[in-house]
């Protein structure tokens, strides 16, 4: 465990020395602060709009961080050959892989925590409402980021950062539209058998990332639906299962890869 922690800590340190990390955070904070300037921000719905837009921006920030960090860490270390120094120590590649994953998740979690504080304070100052329940939405954003990091890292075992970013973005888009688009493509009898088969495989294999999106519910103070412990546990199970599968495949492939 010590080696996994050391690898994870190295990711945190590395991220804190990357300007892009601060740029993404600053950009997100500025956009959140600018949300009240939106023309549709009518009196009465301002607070809901602020919460929904802020959570949407936070989701995008988490996506960008997860994809950038997940896609670049292994290829960068391979290209710079710092991998030779680290993996010649008595550590397994599994420890390296899990450590780097853990580090990225910690960085994303840290960024989400800071964003949470910013949104919380902003809502409190502007509307006088203390709304800690938003943490549930940020938690599910973190769960989705974990899945995305594991996808990006799996791709990065073989591909360049640019390809990894594109593959992960594709996964993200398909994961969000599968409940609607893929389901219709799979069940619509007007489609040819090949389209139905491919849609069916994608529908059952890919996770429904839209299930992890509770931003709207939380933004509207759970007036329509409430997100209870059972629902959260279900979402944790969903994200954990896909993350574990993707990490296992990625770790296995990385452990057999020539460096």
């Amino acid at each position, binding site marked *: 465990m010590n080696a996994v922690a050391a690898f994870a800590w*190295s990711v945190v340190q590395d991220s804190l020395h990357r300007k892009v990390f601060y740029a993404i955070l600053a950009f997100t904070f500025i956009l959140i602060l600018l949300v009240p300037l939106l023309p549709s921000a009518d009196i009465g719905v301002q607070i809901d709009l602020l919460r929904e837009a802020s959570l949407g921006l936070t989701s995008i920030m988490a996506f960008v961080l997860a994809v950038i960090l997940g896609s670049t860490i292994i290829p960068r270390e391979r290209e710079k*050959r710092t991998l*030779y*120094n680290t993996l*010649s120590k008595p550590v397994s590649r599994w420890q390296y892989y899990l450590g780097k994953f853990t580090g990225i998740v910690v960085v994303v979690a840290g960024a989400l925590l800071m964003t949470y504080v910013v949104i919380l304070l902003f809502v409190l100052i502007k509307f006088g409402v203390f709304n800690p329940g938003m943490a549930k939405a940020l938690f599910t954003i973190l769960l989705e980021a974990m899945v995305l990091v594991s996808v990006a890292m799996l791709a990065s075992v073989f591909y360049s950062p640019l390809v990894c970013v594109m593959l992960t973005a594709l996964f993200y888009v398909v994961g969000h539209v599968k409940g609607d688009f893929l389901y219709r493509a799979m069940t619509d009898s007007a489609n040819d058998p090949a389209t139905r088969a491919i849609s069916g495989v994608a529908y059952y294999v890919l996770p429904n990332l839209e299930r992890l999106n509770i931003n709207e519910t939380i933004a509207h103070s759970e007036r329509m639906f409430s997100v209870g412990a059972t629902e959260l546990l279900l979402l944790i199970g969903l994200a954990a299962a896909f993350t574990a599968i993707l990490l296992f495949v990625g770790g296995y492939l990385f452990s057999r890869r*020539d*460096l």
Partner: protein
Amino acid sequence: MQGMETVLRIEDLRKDYAGGWRKPSRPALSGLHLEVPRGSITGLLGPNGAGKTTTLKCIMGLIRPQAGRIWLFGEEATDARSRRRMGFLPEQPYFDFYLTPRKLLSYYGRLAGMDPSRIRTKTSYVLSLVGMGDEADLAMDKFSKGMLQRIGLAQALLSDPEFLVLDEPSSGLDPLGKIQVRDLLNSLRDGGITILLSSHQLSEIEEVCDGVAIIHKGGNVASGSLDDMLRSREEYEIDLEEPTSAAWDELPGSASWADAAHMRVVVSKKSLNEALKALMGSGASIAEVRQRRMTLEEYFLEKIGREGWEVGE
């Protein structure tokens, strides 16, 4: 070297690199054998593309050979545990530049499973050993190639390895740095550490190594003790007390002067007696007769051929 305990044994190692889409694979190692006796410095020599770095990467578990076996300390090297007693310096080591050498070594120490107090003590020690004690707390972004090479050596030495694998340890070092590395390697060997050293620099190998393995196109060309290898030719050297040229006409045809001062004659074993008679007959005073020791470069060219060798010096 026979009978000595072996720290590393490689048997029939084979490795092909994929050639890409619809291209044939390229063999890097084709049945390599190698033994490194305990307490020795063994040089791994070969021209560019001979398979030296591939061999070292296989030993360190960085690449997977298609066939063959690697034994470390008498046990087959199959997982990370086999690297516990080893240190590795890759060719042209590179590090995260935002770290200081002290923080970097602390990180590597944790990976090596060392406890924090030992990491602190050893970090200061190895950084002083490689001449980087004063730079321990500076960021590495302004370090020269030679300074990074020294940091690379420090990280290889950090966990008190019994076996060091070094890929071009003098690369990028200035002449003084090269001398320091040579002295360091000698003192490590005297301290009982076994070293496998891959280098292009024949002088470095010749100065520090006890044994040499020459590889070419992924296979063995020659291996053994350096003394045995370099004395293996059928030639003798005759040293004279003072310069003479009086006997030149009477010397056998195989004889030649080895120096401009005419103090040393090189002659084939077959003509040794004839040359000695001619020299003594002419009144020359003989200081010493010995089997000729080739330079490593001569030996290397003889084994590999000039076309296969791109001299790195």
